[in-house]
């Protein structure tokens, strides 16, 4: 299964309901953009979905969750820790195998940062760090992508490159975006969130930017 059907999603913060109750059905092959102004509950929704479909998803959280002291390679490799035995992972921590090195280098090349391979992520810029988290999600290679503002720190051409890559590599995805143009260009379905509820749910072909702007 790589589509899913979620119902009764709710979240409260300090006794106040911030999300739902709402239902969301995502079919295999759909690319869903979550749009809405900040504070509408997009991040909370991504987190809720992740809790439900954990095993099936590659996640790019807003705060990235990198281990700052480890080099780029290891942060990306972490996406597949479950695929290897403990001795293999431990050895990789000390000296990576060339097979994994090549895989990760390939990914980083596609993201335009192959030369940062051995730098600790603490020394990278915001945009570079974001791409490391994206590389980790790509390396994880789960059937579903859950991403929370994955291009917020990237400049124009790089943002397009990353979105195209995500579209190509993940059949099914849910991406929270504040950039409406990007959402329309790279996603097949737009879900607008307002005050914790679904305020808009439409195929992106039938929408224009101005239809969405009313949510903001």
């Amino acid at each position, binding site marked *: 299964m790589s589509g899913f059907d979620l119902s009764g999603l709710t979240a409260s913060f300090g006794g106040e309901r911030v999300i739902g109750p709402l239902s969301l059905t995502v079919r295999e092959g759909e690319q869903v953009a979550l749009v809405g102004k900040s504070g509408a509950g997009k991040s909370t929704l991504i987190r809720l979905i992740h809790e439900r479909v954990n095993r099936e998803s590659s996640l790019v959280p807003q705060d990235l969750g990198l281990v700052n002291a480890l080099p780029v390679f290891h942060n990306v490799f972490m996406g597949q820790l479950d695929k290897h035995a*403990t001795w293999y992972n431990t050895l990789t921590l000390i000296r990576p195998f060339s097979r994994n090195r090549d895989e990760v280098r390939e990914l980083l090349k596609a993201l335009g940062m192959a030369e940062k391979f051995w730098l600790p992520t603490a020394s990278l810029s915001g945009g570079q760090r974001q791409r490391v988290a994206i590389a980790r999600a790509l390396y994880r290679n789960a059937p579903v992508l859950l991403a929370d503002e994955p291009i917020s720190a990237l400049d124009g051409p790089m943002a397009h490159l990353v979105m195209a890559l995500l579209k190509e590599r993940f059949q099914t995805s849910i991406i929270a975006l504040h950039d409406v143009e990007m959402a329309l260009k790279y996603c097949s379905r737009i879900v607008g969130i307002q005050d914790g509820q679904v305020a808009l749910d439409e195929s992106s072909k039938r929408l224009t930017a101005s239809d969405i702007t009313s949510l903001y």
Partner: protein
Amino acid sequence: MLSSPTVRTSLIFVAVALIGLLFADIAITASNPWRDLGNFFLGVVTPNFFSSEGLMTALLRTVAFAFVGVALGSVCGFLLSLVYRFLPVRVFCAVIRAIHELFWALIFLQFFGFHPLTGVLAIAIPYSGIFAKVYSEILDETDPEPGRLLPPGTGTIAAFLYTRIPDCWVQLRTYTAYRLECGLRSSAILGFVGLPTLGFYLESSFSQGLYSDAGAMLILFYVLIATMPLWVKPKLLPVYILGAPFFLGEGLPIVWGNVERFFTEDIVPSPLRNGEGLAGLIPWLNDLMINEAMPGIWNTVILTQIALVATGILTSLAFPLISNHFGGPVRRTSGHVFLVIARSTPEYILAYILLQLWGPSMLPAVVALALHNGGIIGHLIGRQTNGIRLRPDAPTGFNRYSWELVPRVYRSFLAFLFYRWEIIMRETAILGILGIYTLGFYVDSAIQNIRFDRAMVLILITALLNIGVDILGRYIRRKLALQTMPTC
């Protein structure tokens, strides 16, 4: 001012110390203390490095015991830190670290004798307890987010190695290096109970009045600690750790019969051993409590409280010495030298020296504890003031001290003091071995009289007292919302 909880707490502690002073035995009893002190300083400025070959051996043994003890302690402590969330583990660690290295050494001496194992375990056991606590605190501080993002099904060990260790590696390393420095001090004072480290040679030089030899030893010890960054290198560590066990010396062989006797006979309370049963145990305990434990606890608490306040006073006088906000480079350099010497000298050695010069009373102990702990906290607070940026037109001199700096650092000053409260008490108890009537005195005399059953009960009481003060200190720190880092 008086309504501020931090000020009020400080005043209560000062008042307690003043009341304690009424009961404390503070005196200089030596017939000519200043001449002795003068001779000692003369010895320090005219050190004799070549009097005996024993000096270099003692230095080597001191380093070897420190390395083996701390390495063993850190490995055990690390393993314990992984299960530290379980209450029995916490209690176990609290007890083993509440018993001072010298007490452990005194215990092991009774059955292992002068075997290297005695010194190694005396350091490794309490250090395991300390490492377990601090390592687990450091591990708890790591960012949990990367761990949550791992693919489900990732092994526990891989998850731990990838997401926890790298995040706190620097802190773990810094703290372990700091503990190694403490280990050198612990190792040095183990000589006072007869192990072949610096303390042993210091004591024999002193008792023969060879102040120049003693001075040479102290100077070498300072050099050893001050140059640690130069000779303790990550790449050399495996060499040191693998090599150190070979430099512990031969000692005397372990007589296993003694080990068995110690556990099956010596530490069994004498009424039980003599078949008097529980009926005999009550009067035995009563006698122990009234004649030894109570006076020991009373003196330990009084001395601790006075020493704590004296440490505070010395700290507040000492930190401006290294603060960038006062004076020139010359004064700051001498300030640094003074603080380095104060904090590098183990309080036990300071107390021993002062006791030799001034005669037995609580005074040498108070001064020694205040100098050592004041040196440590003064250094930390002074460094902290260097991070403060004052407005360009800030007042100067004493007004700068009292209006700009003290209010800014007062909370961390108190935090450090309450953190070291328990450490001061542990040291106070142990100084009893030098002849001050704290708990250590009664432990030591029980051991001298071959009454190990009594000694064990007294050591346990000392441990409980330390744990009690630790809990109280933590409670006050939480109540006043004071924060400390573990590296103090």
